[in-house]
C-alpha cells in the first residue's frame, strides 16, 4: 500500500513539474493577447465546384489576366493559357514556355506589371510578356543571386526572392544544413532584369538577418517594409526552432536591413501571410522538414513537413511594429501554405489552400542539394 502511495506521489510530482515547465518556459518574445484552442477541428461550409480542366503536368498557381476572361495556370512544365469567360467550362487556349521550364518551375508564376516572372530550379528565372493576354512573348531569362528560389513578392517593380533549401547526406537522408536568402531584382525593364541587392547577416540583428534558416515566402507592406516567413531552426535540427517573422526595411533595395523578428507560439516554421484591413493572417506549421527524410511507412525519401497548419493574426497598423494578436493550430496536416495560397476575401475572411505541396520528381521537392 505504501509503495503504491509513493508511486502515485511520484507520478503526481512528475506531472506537476512537467506542467510547471510548460507554463514557465519562455516561448516567444512578442506579446500574445489571446490564444484560442490549439489543434481544434475545422467546421464545414462547402464550396460548389463549377468546372475543371485537366492540364499536362498540373498547375501550381493561377494568375488572372486583367482582361477578365483569361487565366494563366502555371505548372512545373508549362504555362497554360485558359479561357475562363464561362467559369464552369474553362477552355485551354494554348500552352507556353515548356522548353524553358523543363519541369523545374516548382514555385509557379508571379506577376509584376504586364509580365510573369517564373523561377526555375536550380538557379534560373524567365520573364514573359502578358500585355497581349492570349499571346505570351518571352522577355528575358536571368540568373537569380541564390539557388532554390521559392517565392517572389513585389514592391513596385522590385521583386523580392526568398529561398528555402537544405543539404542532406545521401547515406542516411539526414539534413545537416538549412538555408534561406532574400534578394532583390529590379523589373523596371522586364527585358533586362537587374539584380539590386540582398539581405546579409548583420551582427546587430543576428536572428532576423540569419541566412541559415529557410525563408519560405515574404510580403511587402507600407512602402518600405517586408515580412519574411521563416523559422529559428538551423543546421540539422529542423524541428527545434520556432516560427519566425522577420521584419526587414527595404526602403533601399540595394541594402535591405533587418529590424527584428516576431516569434510565433505553436509554430515551428512560418510559411506565408496576407494582409486585409491592417490584419496580417500568417500561416505556419507545427513541424518543419522531416529529418531524416525517410518516410517510416515505405522507407521512401520524404522531407515533407510532418505537422499541422497554424494560423496567427497580427495587427500591422504600424508596419514597422506588428503586434501579435492570437495564434492557433488546427487538425489540418499540410506541407505548405504560403502567400500564393492565402487570399483576402473581404469582411474579415480569407480563403486558404492547405495541403501537400506539389512536387516534381521527388517526394520532397527539389528544394534540396544532396551531398
Amino acid at each position, binding site marked *: 500500500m505504501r509503495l503504491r502511495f509513493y508511486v502515485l506521489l511520484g507520478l503526481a510530482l512528475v506531472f506537476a513539474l512537467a506542467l510547471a515547465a510548460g507554463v514557465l518556459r519562455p516561448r516567444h518574445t512578442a506579446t500574445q*493577447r489571446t490564444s*484560442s484552442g490549439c489543434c*481544434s477541428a*475545422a*467546421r*464545414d*461550409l*462547402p*464550396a*460548389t*465546384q*463549377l*468546372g*475543371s*480542366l*485537366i*492540364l499536362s503536368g*498540373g*498547375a*501550381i*498557381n*493561377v*494568375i*488572372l489576366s486583367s482582361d*477578365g476572361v483569361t*487565366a494563366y*495556370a*502555371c*505548372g512545373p512544365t508549362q504555362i*497554360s493559357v*485558359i479561357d*475562363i469567360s464561362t*467559369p*464552369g467550362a*474553362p477552355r485551354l487556349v494554348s500552352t507556353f514556355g515548356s522548353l524553358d521550364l523543363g519541369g523545374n518551375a516548382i514555385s*509557379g508564376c508571379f506577376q509584376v506589371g504586364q509580365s510573369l516572372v517564373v523561377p526555375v530550379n536550380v538557379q534560373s528565372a524567365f520573364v514573359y510578356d502578358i500585355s497581349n493576354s492570349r499571346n505570351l512573348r518571352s522577355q528575358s531569362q536571368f540568373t537569380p543571386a541564390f539557388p532554390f528560389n521559392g517565392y517572389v513578392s513585389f514592391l513596385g517593380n522590385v521583386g523580392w526572392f526568398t529561398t528555402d533549401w537544405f543539404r542532406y547526406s545521401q547515406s542516411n537522408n539526414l539534413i545537416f544544413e538549412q538555408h534561406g536568402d532574400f534578394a532583390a531584382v529590379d523589373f523596371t525593364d522586364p527585358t533586362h532584369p537587374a539584380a539590386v541587392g540582398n539581405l546579409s547577416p548583420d551582427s546587430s540583428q543576428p536572428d532576423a538577418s540569419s541566412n541559415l534558416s529557410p525563408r519560405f515566402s515574404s510580403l511587402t507592406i507600407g512602402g518600405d517594409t517586408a515580412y519574411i516567413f521563416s523559422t529559428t531552426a538551423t543546421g540539422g535540427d529542423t524541428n527545434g526552432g520556432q516560427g519566425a517573422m522577420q521584419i526587414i526595411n527595404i526602403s533601399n533595395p540595394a541594402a535591405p536591413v533587418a529590424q527584428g523578428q516576431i516569434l510565433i507560439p505553436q509554430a515551428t516554421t512560418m510559411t506565408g501571410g496576407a494582409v486585409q484591413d491592417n*490584419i496580417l*493572417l500568417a500561416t505556419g506549421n507545427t513541424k518543419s522538414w522531416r529529418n531524416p527524410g525517410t518516410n517510416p511507412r515505405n522507407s521512401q525519401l520524404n522531407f515533407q513537413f510532418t505537422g499541422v497548419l497554424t*494560423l496567427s*493574426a*497580427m*495587427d500591422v497598423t504600424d508596419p514597422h511594429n506588428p503586434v501579435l*494578436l*492570437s495564434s*492557433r493550430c488546427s487538425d*489540418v496536416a499540410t506541407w505548405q501554405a504560403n502567400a*500564393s*495560397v492565402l*487570399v483576402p*476575401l473581404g*469582411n*474579415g*475572411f480569407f*480563403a*486558404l*489552400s*492547405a*495541403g*501537400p505541396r*506539389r512536387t516534381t520528381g521527388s517526394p520532397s521537392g527539389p528544394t534540396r542539394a544532396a551531398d
Partner: protein
Amino acid sequence: MLVDARDPTNLGLISMGYVPKLAGITVSGNTLYAATGDGLAVFQLPDLSSL
C-alpha cells in the same frame, strides 16, 4: 479552407471541401480558381453572410 478573422483574437477555421492535389488559389468575385496537380478547378464560394 476559409479563415474567419473578423475577430483576429479568435481565428475561426472552416472547411470548404477537399480538393485532391490542391496547390495555389486565386479569387475573382465569388469564383475561386484552384491550381491542382491535375490542372485547374473552379468553385463558387459559399455564402458567407450566414456566418
